[in-house]
């Protein structure tokens, strides 16, 4: 019962707001917050209880295809529920302050509630089809929220881009689901697991079936590639920062983008059966994390830096899944959700205080003006950079690096490089924004945000620190098994943290502008430009082709051909319309003669 309540409360709220409360901004925001609060409380209740599954058959085509609507409550989903509803609740509360002056905040809160509903649906889904449905719903709500300020062309474009890019991934995801169903005859996770185990053991026709499974898993992986913004479909996430900052915090940092990781962890048994696919996943994840970190070093928009940082951390998680360390991925997802949400909310607070200024080179000196934001942002940054032994981020990153080390030294190298860059760009961001001298009037007159916005920041700082400690993590079902560690990975991680931080400090201390300019990173490896050209090429070819068909085949041959035929036939025939009755009679007589000859041949 509580489980259903978790799922349905936000839906009820979304429907209520959309249908009834659109005109009342205050009421709709309270309804939304109350709904997510209820979800959170129910999640806590469920978390305290045992594992169970409730489900009913939704589509029943006999033994070949049965699709249930069901809720899975197990260790994995319980943890995820807490993350989603917990961060969600704080973001909702924060939104009360952030969206206070927005005239269409009803729509915003309705979208937020819809998002909570669909995200919780993904977390609770017990089969692929249900997950896919909520997967799409999440895409829709993300689209709605990115485009919340649709009057702004860039926001409208960004929402469109996010939606379309996600479509590509979702299409592959759907094909993957169909392939898995074709192979195993079921879409329910709990039935899939023994089926896969049987398949792997079965010696007959093993190679072909396993390669089919590998392809299917790779198609399924396309879903996370889109939703979790992995290379090469990562381009939508930085643009998605056009949405309101709380949305960026909730959807594009803490929860939705982690849905891909969650999905992979959920179907980890499939991945284990397809080692090839696992390798691909690992490579995609690690390359994404390194490239995103490189891009982050050269961005100037505070939210974009965080967005690339998110990309990078998601790459870690995906990579961890690829190493076969699903627990480590979940652990990092968990800690990352809190400190990244805190970072984004802090950035939102900064933006709010700076009157919607997002360029870090126009900030500076905010440490005195916005003390709570400064402190919480610092804590969350340290967590992201991985301050050794104190912050949660260190522990979870350490778990992933350890898994990478056990897989291959290349992955460890990539991971350490990313960690180094992370420390570097976060130092850059922090130093330039808070510690340097003010670089604009707005920065000189910045003000602290109201308590309703800073309180979530403070609350989020707590898990950013403590959730990494072994006991706490275990309590949240995040028991990460430690493998052998001949290289002393924690030491290496600590070393690169120090290295990156010190480097950042000395490069950016008291700078008025960026001393490093690397166009390749600033222009995001020219991905957007490349896609522009590609899209333009295919689109133009198709357009030309259809223009040709339209112009010459449809217009020319069919439309104009028909009119010309009718016109010319009429033009010829009208000479018979002489108006002379006797001429008609002659034709008539000739016709009679013809008939006579035909009839009496």
């Amino acid at each position, binding site marked *: 019962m509580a489980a259903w309540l978790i799922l349905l409360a936000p839906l009820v709220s979304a429907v209520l707001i959309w249908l009834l409360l659109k005109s009342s901004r205050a009421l709709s925001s309270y309804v939304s917050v109350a709904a997510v609060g209820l979800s959170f409380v129910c999640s806590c209740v469920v978390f305290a209880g045992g594992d169970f599954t409730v489900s009913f058959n939704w589509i029943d085509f006999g033994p070949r295809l049965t699709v249930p609507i069901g809720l899975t409550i197990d260790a994995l989903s319980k943890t995820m529920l807490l993350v989603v509803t917990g961060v969600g609740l704080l973001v909702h509360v924060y939104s009360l302050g952030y969206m206070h002056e927005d005239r269409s905040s009803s729509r915003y809160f309705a979208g937020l509630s819809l998002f909570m509903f669909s995200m919780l649906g993904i977390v609770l889904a017990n089969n692929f089809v249900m997950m896919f449905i909520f997967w799409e719903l999440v895409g829709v709500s993300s689209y709605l929220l990115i485009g919340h300020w649709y009057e702004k062309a860039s926001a409208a474009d960004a929402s469109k881009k996010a939606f379309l890019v996600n479509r590509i991934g979702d299409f592959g995801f759907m094909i993957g689901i169909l392939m898995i169903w074709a192979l195993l005859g079921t879409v329910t996770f709990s039935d899939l697991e023994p089926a896969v185990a049987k398949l792997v053991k079965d010696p007959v026709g093993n190679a072909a079936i396993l390669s089919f499974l590998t392809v299917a898993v790779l198609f399924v992986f396309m879903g996370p590639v889109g939703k979790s913004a992995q290379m090469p479909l990562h381009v939508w996430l930085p643009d998605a920062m056009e949405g309101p900052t709380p949305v960026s915090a909730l959807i594009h940092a803490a929860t939705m983008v982690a849905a891909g990781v969650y999905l992979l962890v959920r179907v980890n048994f499939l991945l284990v059966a397809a080692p090839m696919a696992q390798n691909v996943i690992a490579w995609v994840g690690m390359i994404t994390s390194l490239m995103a970190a490189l891009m982050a070093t050269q961005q100037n928009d505070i939210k974009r830096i965080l967005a690339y940082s998110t990309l990078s951390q998601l790459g870690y998680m995906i990579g961890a899944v690829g190493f076969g360390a699903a627990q480590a991925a979940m652990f990092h997802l968990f800690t990352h959700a809190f400190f990244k949400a805190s970072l984004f909310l802090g950035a939102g607070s900064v933006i709010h205080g700076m009157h919607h200024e997002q360029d870090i080179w126009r900030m500076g000196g905010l440490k005195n003006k916005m003390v709570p934001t400064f402190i919480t942002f610092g804590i969350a940054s340290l967590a992201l950079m991985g301050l050794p032994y104190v912050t949660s981020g260190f522990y979870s990153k350490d778990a992933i690096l350890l898994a990478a080390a056990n897989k291959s030294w290349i992955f460890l190298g990539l991971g350490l490089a990313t960690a180094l860059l992370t420390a570097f760009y976060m130092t850059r961001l922090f130093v330039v924004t808070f510690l340097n001298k003010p670089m604009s009037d707005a920065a000189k007159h910045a003000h602290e945000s109201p308590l309703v916005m800073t309180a979530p920041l403070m609350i989020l700082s707590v898990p950013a620190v403590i959730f990494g400690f072994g006991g706490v993590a275990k309590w949240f079902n995040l028991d990460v098994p430690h493998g052998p560690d001949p290289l002393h990975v924690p030491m290496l991680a600590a070393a690169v943290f120090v290295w990156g931080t010190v480097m950042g400090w000395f490069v950016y201390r008291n700078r008025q502008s960026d001393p490093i300019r690397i166009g390749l990173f600033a222009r995001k490896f020219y991905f957007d430009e490349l896609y522009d050209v590609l899209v333009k090429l295919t689109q133009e070819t198709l357009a030309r082709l259809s223009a040709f068909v339209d112009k010459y085949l449809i217009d020319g041959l069919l439309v104009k051909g028909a009119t010309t035929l009718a016109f010319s036939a009429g033009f010829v025939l009208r000479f018979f*319309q002489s*108006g*002379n009755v006797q001429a008609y009679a002659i034709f008539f*007589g000739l016709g009679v003669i013809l008939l006579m000859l035909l009839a009496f041949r």
Partner: protein
Amino acid sequence: MSLNDYLLVSGLLFAIGFTGVLVRRNLIVIYMCLELMLNAANLALVSFSRFRVAPDGMPDYHGQILVFFIITVAAAEVAVGLAIIVALYRARQTTQVTEINRMQY
């Protein structure tokens, strides 16, 4: 006499009437020629009626009934047609078909 003789007379009469319809320009004369054509049909019908003898040895009178009706319809037709000609003459002051050619493109 044989049926073919009568049918030949009927056909020639029809042809003469049709020629009149085709070549004459006076509407009233065209009308008379139409009457000739109708009577050609009548002649053919009567000769078929005579040709097809019923079991009791009498001619087939069904054909004659049809002739009867044709004569009636022709009378009605002439009355209406001539009325139309009169109305037309009032409107256009002519009975020449070549001058009544408004219905053209």
